[in-house]
């Protein structure tokens, strides 16, 4: 029997039980759609975070106290500004520092809550942090503890209604700072908006927060090949100064690797949960195919009596199962893509990236589910004894 004929018979059979076929497909539709949506969201989240990490700068080494491991408790920093100088002398590289805290920023009657980051001039060179207007902090600002600030573009909107803030004075945690620069927009991140940050000299921040430490330091190796060397020098300096403590000097690759692993794992878990629903859909297909074979026992007997071979009957029922699951799969893909894009549009922090492989995989899996779960009923049909089948009611 030609496939075209088997196809025609299968379509006729599916049409004859329209509602039943549709309900059976629904299981597959839901399974495939959830695979596509969850993979899209997982991939989107991963890509977004990776872009942010990459946006930091390529040969970056970030120094934080304690051990940087997923799930380890954060360690209270004992680093101080002098350590940055030691590092600079040992490595010959500029060292950026950071001490951050959440503070209320006011201008006139307007106020906004912002992450206030005490930094030094090196930040603008170590990190990719372009300033759109005005300029970034300078060494002398840090040395003289000048009360100047560089603010994010979101604050320009919320505090100044978009008017030019350069030269204006804002209140940060109750202390007056003069705005000398505005950051270029870098967009929001999963961790919060970086466009509403305020950078002030580290020395001013230490006084403002009443804290003599720095949270973290960062430096850039001249080339990628230098990263291990600079990293080793950094750790040596810190081990020398704080013999009892551990520090981590993490590179962009390490962060990318860790973040990638966590999000990759998350995506896999989500996809696996979705795959279970696809499996359940497949069991439904198998069930309905068994019913279909039973209902059509006499038809099978007749077809065999007039010359259908086992494989003709098998093909007919297998095609019916595959048709059920692959139509369900296509509908599921359409729903999944639509759902991903809809979710991404509706929820700002939820990026969705449709990779080419997830619909292809979902379709392939659903067709395979059809074959896998269709084969038992189809073989049962193919093996029916024609005389017994013809006698059945």
């Amino acid at each position, binding site marked *: 029997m030609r496939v075209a004929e088997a196809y025609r018979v299968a379509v006729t059979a599916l049409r004859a039980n329209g509602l039943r076929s549709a309900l059976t497909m629904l299981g597959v539709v839901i399974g495939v759609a959830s695979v596509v949506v969850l993979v899209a969201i997982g991939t989107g989240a991963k890509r977004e975070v990776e872009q942010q990490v990459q946006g930091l700068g390529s040969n970056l080494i970030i120094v934080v106290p304690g051990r940087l491991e997923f799930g380890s408790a954060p360690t209270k920093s004992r680093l101080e500004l002098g350590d940055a100088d030691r590092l600079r002398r040992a490595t010959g590289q500029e060292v950026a520092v950071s001490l951050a805290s959440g503070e209320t920023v006011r201008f006139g009657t307007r106020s906004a809550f912002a992450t206030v980051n005490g930094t030094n001039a090196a930040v603008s060179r170590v990190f990719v942090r372009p300033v759109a207007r005005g300029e970034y902090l300078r060494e002398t600002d840090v040395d003289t503890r000048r009360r100047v600030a560089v603010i994010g573009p979101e604050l320009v909107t919320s505090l100044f209604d978009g008017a030019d803030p350069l030269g204006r004075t804002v209140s940060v945690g109750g202390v007056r700072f003069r705005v000398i620069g505005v950051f270029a927009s870098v967009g929001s991140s999963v961790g919060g908006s970086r466009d509403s940050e305020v950078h002030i000299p580290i020395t001013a921040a230490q006084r403002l927060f009443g804290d003599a430490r720095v949270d973290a330091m960062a430096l850039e190796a001249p080339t990628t090949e230098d990263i291990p060397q600079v990293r080793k020098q950094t750790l040596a300096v810190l081990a020398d100064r704080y013999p009892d403590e551990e520090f981590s000097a993490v590179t962009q690759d390490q962060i990318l690797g860790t973040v990638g692993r966590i999000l990759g794992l998350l995506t896999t878990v989500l996809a696996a949960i979705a795959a279970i629903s696809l499996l359940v859909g497949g069991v439904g297909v198998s069930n309905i195919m068994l019913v279909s074979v039973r209902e059509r026992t006499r038809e099978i007997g*007749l077809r065999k009596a007039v*010359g259908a071979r086992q494989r003709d009957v098998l093909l007919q029922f297998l095609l019916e199962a595959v048709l059920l699951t692959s139509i369900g799969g296509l509908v599921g893909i359409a729903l999944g893509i639509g759902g991903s894009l809809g979710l991404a549009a509706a929820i700002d922090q939820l990026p969705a990236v449709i990779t080419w492989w997830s619909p292809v995989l979902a379709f392939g899996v659903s067709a395979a589910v059809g074959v896998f779960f269709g084969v038992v009923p189809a073989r049962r049909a193919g093996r029916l004894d024609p005389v017994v089948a013809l006698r059945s009611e």
Partner: protein
Amino acid sequence: MTPALEAIDVTRSYQLEDVRVDALRGVSLTIEHGDYVAVVGPSGSGKSTLMHLLGGLDRPTTGTLRVGGQDVAAMSQDQLAQVRNATIGFVFQSFQLLARTSAVDNVGMPLVYRGVRRAERRRCATEALERVGMGHRLAHRPSQLSGGEQQRVAIARALVGGPQVLLADEPTGNLDTRTGEEVMALLEALNDEQGVAVVLVTHDRDVAQRARRQVRVRDGLLEP
């Protein structure tokens, strides 16, 4: 010339739980090309079982069965299916037409398994339906046809592949006398004009008497 069908001392037993039912207990029967045989006998005597064996739909428990000179024991299920398709036409007692399927597609179905294309199938099926006087009911479904019409569609389906033997199990059993007469005339015309061997099971003495010879089955054996 080899006979169309040849059964040599065939038996057919069914194993049910712990009892064995011997439906046929050693039957030898030869159907020549162009033969016209009536199989008669009481209910449960094994007539249908014999027809199934003769048509290669079933295999004997012991004994030899040859279809067109070929021993069915040497054939696989699928080979046997192809032999049935090529040489045998079945007319079942209960019509066995596919519901939701037009007369022309019902009749064309055996050709599907010969790899005949749809247009050609329809052409052959239409021809077969015209031959049984059903040329005006091509698109009708079984539920839209009378009993006699359904039986004629079933005969057309048995004819469409140009069989050498037509096996009809009580072809007039469900029909009134007049329609039964029409169906018989049809079968006899085929036998006469096309030389198709006809084997039919019947309970009707008049019908049986029209055949060239009669075979009487009783309790799984042929009566002499």
